[in-house]
């Protein structure tokens, strides 16, 4: 049975984690651990793909709380996300066989890497609230340990601290959500919860808690502030795993609670989800555009993509609640497809950033440039990833965004007025986010890989080893494949979607020429394969024609630059100057950007100075006030440390009476 195989994989990963403690001191320890993780992830991946269409399998183990035991289940939804997570795990392990050799303290990474993988799988398999929360918290802790792996940098310590606080906060909210779902009957296994959906009001509260709890893990605005600190702090293969894998586990948590355990949705449930998703999509990419640290820009772009996924989920909720299950299936498929796509290209992007970091030792884009000459293969793989995440056809990012647009175009049929106003606005924000993402990745790629080297490290960069290149090229190939054969992916996700929305998209397997048709042929269709063939064919045709009939001569000469070539490397556009026009358009309103220019008077030889200040409104508007409130509260609570014994007793007594009262009134 598939669920047993998955659990054995988890057990083996945990054993590998224990083994890694002694192994990390050995010279060959790192390849053995990562190799083992690779093999186990591949086994898990094959198993999950095979389980996509299979009926759900369950297993109960006498672990965990006495009396309840630990329940595990592998159904279509779990299988989709298991496949995504195992894919990320396998590629990260392959990459790390090469990348991990340079780690200076392998003992701080090796044991936690397999444990992190195991915990993520366990979340996806859990079938009762206790196992779910236990696995969720283990996942947070294992990733926290990886974030703080390089603990000497003060920046990383701060990131890890913020991450730990936010992760605990998220788990706490999910705990409350399960508590409310369990109700007074105290049902904690998912089978029982599914049979007893909550009342309307409680359902709304649980939705809010799940959105906040899972959303904080996934990085929804305004709960995102930890993510761009924590994801870049970890080693690059772990950054990839966190951004590509762990955020998807958070999406899974939201899906499991809201779509599966809470019964039929209310009409308004889609509204908060849609609003949070659209805001995250637009703001995340705007933040990403302003960063000059390459890994931090990627982390912010994760927020954007999670926002796109949540827009899909919000649409799916709205459609299913308003009796349009077929449209709901389309929106949910789009969201799942985008989750898969994001896992593919974001892993690849973080791998590329790690390769650059390994080759140059810098993360700041302002000191890179011209890497395409020293690292041609990395540059090629990164180009595919940048094009894919910018939603350009014929790659995979475009297909999922196209499906979401198609879902938006069905939504005038929704009856609720609030949705009628919100959905077009969300569509506009989504289109804006897609265009800004293209700008962001032109900038990221152009500044770091093109142009002339801005520093000696960039000039000396050399190509990375075979393992890392292999992982990157494999993911690039998958990006192209998912883009040209989207029908396969849609069909593979159909059972999971059907289980949650009660409908499925029309089967794509029989459509002529392998195109996809989300609703009806007269309405819309798209064929990535033919687009690729046409573009490649006409490019080849014209290249052949010109080379044959016109000219094929090439001469190298100094750059022309409108007649004023300047050999100074400082005359190139930098990352921040590239973003300046967009910063002028959006920056002043979104993050109160302030530019100060100090220009010395004529004759003064001191340099001109330019200072830029950006504020993340989430920090000023939400986190700092909260932190201050907690600080003030803890100051008050401090008095409790100096009470007499009689007063302590009075406190305990009061608490007891209060609880009894609650029981008397509620029961």
């Amino acid at each position, binding site marked *: 049975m598939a669920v047993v195989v998955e659990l054995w994989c988890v057990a083996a990963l945990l054993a590998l984690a224990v083994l890694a403690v002694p192994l990390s001191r050995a010279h060959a320890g790192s390849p053995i651990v990562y190799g083992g993780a690779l093999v186990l992830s591949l086994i898990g991946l094959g198993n999950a793909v095979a389980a996509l269409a299979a009926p759900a399998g369950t297993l109960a183990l006498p672990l965990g709380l006495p009396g309840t035991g630990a329940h595990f289940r592998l159904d279509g939804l779990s299988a989709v996300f298991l496949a995504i997570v195992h894919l990320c795990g396998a590629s990260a392990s392959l990459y790390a066989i090469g990348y991990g050799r340079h780690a200076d303290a392998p003992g701080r990474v090796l044991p936690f890497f397999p444990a992190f993988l195991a915990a993520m799988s366990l979340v996806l398999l859990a079938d009762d609230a206790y196992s779910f929360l236990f696995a969720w918290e283990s996942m947070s802790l294992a990733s926290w340990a990886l974030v703080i792996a390089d603990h000497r940098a003060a920046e990383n310590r701060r990131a890890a601290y913020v991450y730990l606080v936010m992760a605990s906060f998220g788990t706490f909210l999910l705990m409350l959500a399960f508590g409310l779902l369990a109700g007074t009957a105290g049902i904690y296994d998912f089978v029982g919860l599914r049979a007893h959906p909550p009342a309307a009001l409680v359902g709304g509260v649980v939705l809010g808690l799940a959105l906040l709890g899972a959303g904080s893990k996934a990085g929804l605005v305004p709960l995102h502030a930890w993510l761009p600190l924590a994801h870049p702090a970890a080693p690059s293969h772990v950054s990839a795993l966190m951004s590509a894998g762990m955020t998807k586990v958070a999406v899974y948590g939201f899906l499991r609670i809201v779509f599966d355990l809470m019964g039929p949705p209310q009409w308004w449930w889609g509204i908060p989800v849609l609003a949070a998703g659209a805001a995250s999509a637009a703001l995340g990419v705007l933040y990403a555009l302003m960063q000059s640290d390459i890994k931090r820009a990627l982390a912010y772009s994760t927020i954007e993509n999670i926002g796109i996924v949540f827009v899909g989920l919000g649409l799916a909720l709205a459609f299913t609640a308003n009796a349009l299950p077929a449209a709901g299936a389309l929106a949910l498929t789009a969201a799942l497809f985008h989750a898969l796509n994001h896992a593919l290209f974001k892993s690849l992007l973080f791998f590329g950033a790690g390769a650059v970091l390994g080759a140059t030792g810098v993360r700041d884009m302002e000191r890179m440039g011209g890497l395409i000459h020293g690292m041609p293969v990395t540059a090629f793989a990164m180009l595919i990833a940048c094009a894919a995440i910018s939603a350009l056809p014929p790659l995979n990012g475009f297909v999922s965004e196209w499906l979401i647009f198609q879902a938006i175009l069905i939504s005038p049929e929704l009856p609720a*007025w609030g949705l*009628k*106003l919100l959905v077009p606005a969300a569509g506009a924000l989504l289109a804006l986010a897609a265009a800004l993402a293209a700008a962001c990745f032109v900038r990221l790629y152009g500044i770091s890989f093109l142009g002339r080297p801005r520093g000696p490290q960039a000039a000396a960069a050399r190509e990375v080893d075979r393992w890392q290149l292999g992982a990157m090229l494999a993911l690039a190939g998958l990006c192209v494949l998912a883009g040209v054969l989207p029908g396969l992916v849609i069909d593979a996700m159909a059972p999971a979607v059907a289980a949650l929305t009660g409908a499925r998209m029309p089967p794509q397997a029989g459509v002529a020429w392998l195109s996809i048709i989300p609703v009806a042929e007269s309405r819309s269709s798209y064929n990535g394969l033919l687009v690729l063939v046409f573009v490649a064919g006409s490019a080849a045709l014209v290249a052949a024609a010109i080379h044959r009939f016109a000219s094929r001569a090439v001469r190298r000469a100094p750059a022309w630059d409108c007649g004023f070539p300047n050999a100074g490397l400082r005359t190139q556009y930098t990352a921040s100057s590239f973003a300046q026009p967009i910063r002028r*358009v959006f920056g002043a*309103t979104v993050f109160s950007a302030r530019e100060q220019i100090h220009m010395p008077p004529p004759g003064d030889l001191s340099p001109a100075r330019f200072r830029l200040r950006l504020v993340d409104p989430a920090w000023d508007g939400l986190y700092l006030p909260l932190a201050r409130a907690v600080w003030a509260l803890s100051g008050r609570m401090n008095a409790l440390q100096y009470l007499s014994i009689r007063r302590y007793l009075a406190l305990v007594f009061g608490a007891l009476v209060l609880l009894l009262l609650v029981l008397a009134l509620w029961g």
Partner: protein
Amino acid sequence: MGSLVFDVAHLLAGGLVLLSLVMLYQDRLPALIRMFALQAVVLTLSVSWQAYAQGAPHLYVTAAIALAFKAIIIPIALQRIVVRLGLHREVETALSIGPTMVAGIALVALSMVVMLRVTAEADPLAREDLAFALSVVLLGLLMMVTRRNAVSQVVGFMSLENGLILAAAGAKGMPLVVEISVAFSVLVAFIVIGIFLFRIRERFDTVDSAALDRFREGQR
């Protein structure tokens, strides 16, 4: 035929809303005033079409008044004020153009939803005309709120009044007397405001209404 009547009325009313948005977008006073004159012309067309469609000849009078005053006399007078006073040609904004446009779209959406929900059983022509009219009124108010310069505030006020006339013409039944009195009151308001402009200018050397605020602060 019925559909054509409806479509044309609709298009003209939509044109009024569009011109209101265009006026929000303008950053030069002369261009703003020209757009206002254009809006008055479209209003004239719209009201005339309503007169033809409803067979209500008194609406032609309304249209003629709108054309004479709002499309010709007032814009020319305003242009002369701008030239005579040597005002800054740029519109001084309290909120920059991008956010103002977003706010404008949100207001149009709001008025659509409110009107379409409230008047669910009325006939579609009046319904959507009313929705457009409310949009024009709200956009005029938005312009008065977000523009610092007194001339553009006057233009915002006039365009607000255009929305009222559109509503009146669509609602089939405002008596002629009322319309004429509205038109004259607007004219009187315009004259009063015009005189004020000159006085303000003489006194403070600017028509930026913030100067008045500063003056009031100083008096306290």
